[in-house]
């Protein structure tokens, strides 16, 4: 039940991230103008409405506001409470909060998936090197992984972000992924070593299977569940780290919409609830769904 709820929420976030431009934008999805039917016409908002003419029509996204640019037909609404026009109010630049929340899902999903992918691939590579490398070097390599993994992840990310000076999403994902890769590596290396020393693996070797075959056909499949758990924890860590880093002013570069940036704005502006509550809620639910997937008991295999 918990696993299904978590998967359903994460699917919702994935849809929001993938279809953010169709869900929240001031560009119509499809419009019929004097020139004919157009998919995602370039004209936006009031400009398109003027082009439509008497027989024209347009299908707008459910939230017809741009997450970055502010185009007003009248007065600029800054830090405005929710209205029918802006269902979750506006931020300190008059941008629609609901639109930024939906596009923020893209930022969090990119960071989460990117950090999890990098940490898993790097961790698996390190684990293979440790498990298959010279046994004499194994304790030192595992101790190094232990030391890196036990370093405070947020502090490492904060310090590295300051030292390297890059503030892009890719750099942020890499900074979050590297300490987690060490944790993934020690987990996978321990499991790989146990699987390669298990009686079934020794029996397979005795029957003539090559070390590569034992590794690929037997040991690695046994490690996948542990890697999936580590990946889910990395993705959750990335979502929470983004919120903390954005709050400290070291998150995704402006004007990238992100949930952490909305939380930071809430603190700067006397805790306007429409800035703090939705962003905090989606961050918590997304991280909780990922942790729940990591903690869920494994399914019985046939």
């Amino acid at each position, binding site marked *: 039940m*918990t696993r299904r709820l978590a998967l359903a929420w994460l699917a919702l976030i994935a849809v929001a991230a993938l279809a953010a431009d169709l869900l929240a934008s001031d560009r119509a999805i499809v419009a019929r103008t004097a020139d004919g039917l157009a998919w995602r016409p370039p004209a936006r908002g009031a400009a398109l409405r003027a082009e439509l003419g008497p027989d024209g029509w347009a299908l707008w996204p459910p939230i017809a506001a741009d997450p970055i640019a502010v185009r007003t037909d009248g007065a600029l609404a800054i830090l405005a409470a929710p209205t029918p026009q802006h269902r979750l109010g506006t931020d300190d630049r008059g941008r629609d909060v609901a639109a930024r929340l939906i596009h923020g899902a893209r930022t969090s999903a990119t960071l989460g998936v990117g950090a999890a992918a990098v940490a898993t691939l790097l961790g698996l590579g390190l684990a293979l090197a440790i498990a298959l490398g010279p046994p004499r070097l194994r304790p030192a390599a595992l101790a190094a992984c232990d*030391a890196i993994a*036990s*370093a*405070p*992840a*947020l*502090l*490492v990310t*904060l*310090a*590295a*972000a*300051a*030292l*390297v*000076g*890059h503030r892009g999403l890719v750099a942020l994902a890499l900074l979050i992924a590297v300490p987690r890769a060490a944790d993934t590596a020690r987990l996978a290396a321990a499991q790989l070593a146990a699987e390669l020393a298990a009686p079934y693996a020794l029996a397979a070797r005795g029957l003539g299977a090559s070390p590569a075959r034992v590794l690929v056909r037997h040991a690695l499949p046994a490690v996948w569940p542990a890697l999936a758990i580590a990946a889910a924890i990395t993705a*959750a860590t990335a979502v*929470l780290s983004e*919120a*903390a880093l954005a*709050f*400290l*002013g*070291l998150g995704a570069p402006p004007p990238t919409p992100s949930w*952490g940036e909305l*939380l*930071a704005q*809430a*603190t700067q502006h006397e*805790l306007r609830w429409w800035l*703090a509550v939705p962003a*905090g809620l989606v*961050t*918590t*639910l*997304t*991280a*909780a769904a*990922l*942790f*729940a997937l990591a*903690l869920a008991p494994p399914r019985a295999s046939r």
Partner: protein
Amino acid sequence: MTAAARIAARVLAAWLATWMIGWALVELAPERPALTAARAGGRLPPELAGVAARDRAVAAVARAHDLDGGAAARWVRVSARAAIGRLPRSWRDDRSAGAAAARHAAATVGRALAALALALAAGVGVPLAVARRRGAAAAVAGVGAIAVAVPTVWLCQLAVAVAPAAALTSAWAVAALAAAPAAVVALHVGAALAEIDRTPLAIAVAARGASRRRWHAVHALALIAPRLAPLAASTLGFTLAAGAVVERALALPGAGRTLVAAAAAGDAPVVLTLAAAAAALVALVAGLAAAATGPAAARATEAP
């Protein structure tokens, strides 16, 4: 090697590794350290016109902060000096980086240690208290998964929203810092209790007439203790790092705010001094916890 020597070696390794890796990042950054230092110290004002004038200003900063020479030579020099405690000066205000880092550090470390104690007490106490109740394990796992997912900044905002500003003291900060680590410890302890309750030792202790309460308090807790040692270290790491968020959200003084200000300005010596001090403190607590919990586990395996 004695336990004290092992702990000292661990602390020194954490301190030195942070400096070596951190300064390598400084050298790998797209901008030259001297240029970053000049920018951080405000030596490149917009009115400083002309490439030659800017180059002269950067060269002066490089000489003043010993940032001349090649990247490898600088890296060796900084690492060797950090090993003997000779820290570079702050790029922002030219003071000793150690002095800048030490300012308000006691408040941050005090809050982090208090949060560590609270997280361990709550994380161990709650699963032990509810262990005999039906469905307790599932409840601890469910609440723990939610609690660990709440962003620290959001917890602080909730505190600000519900409490009067005058009441937002360090106690709130400690509670906000301890929430997520307490959930992590509770999840580990809950899972470990469920596992240990099924061992032959548990059955033997029960057969000899010991109550379940005594089993948990005397034997199970001591068996779990070694698993808590690495958790204590990672919890302290989290509380030190999240201190920056809490201090900013609740407007409290502390080294976390110094770190954020130094990070925003690109003041690498102060950032690295604070990061290395935090890594050394975490290594110290990890070593002490491992030394303290090892013998307890050995004693716990003896049935009454």
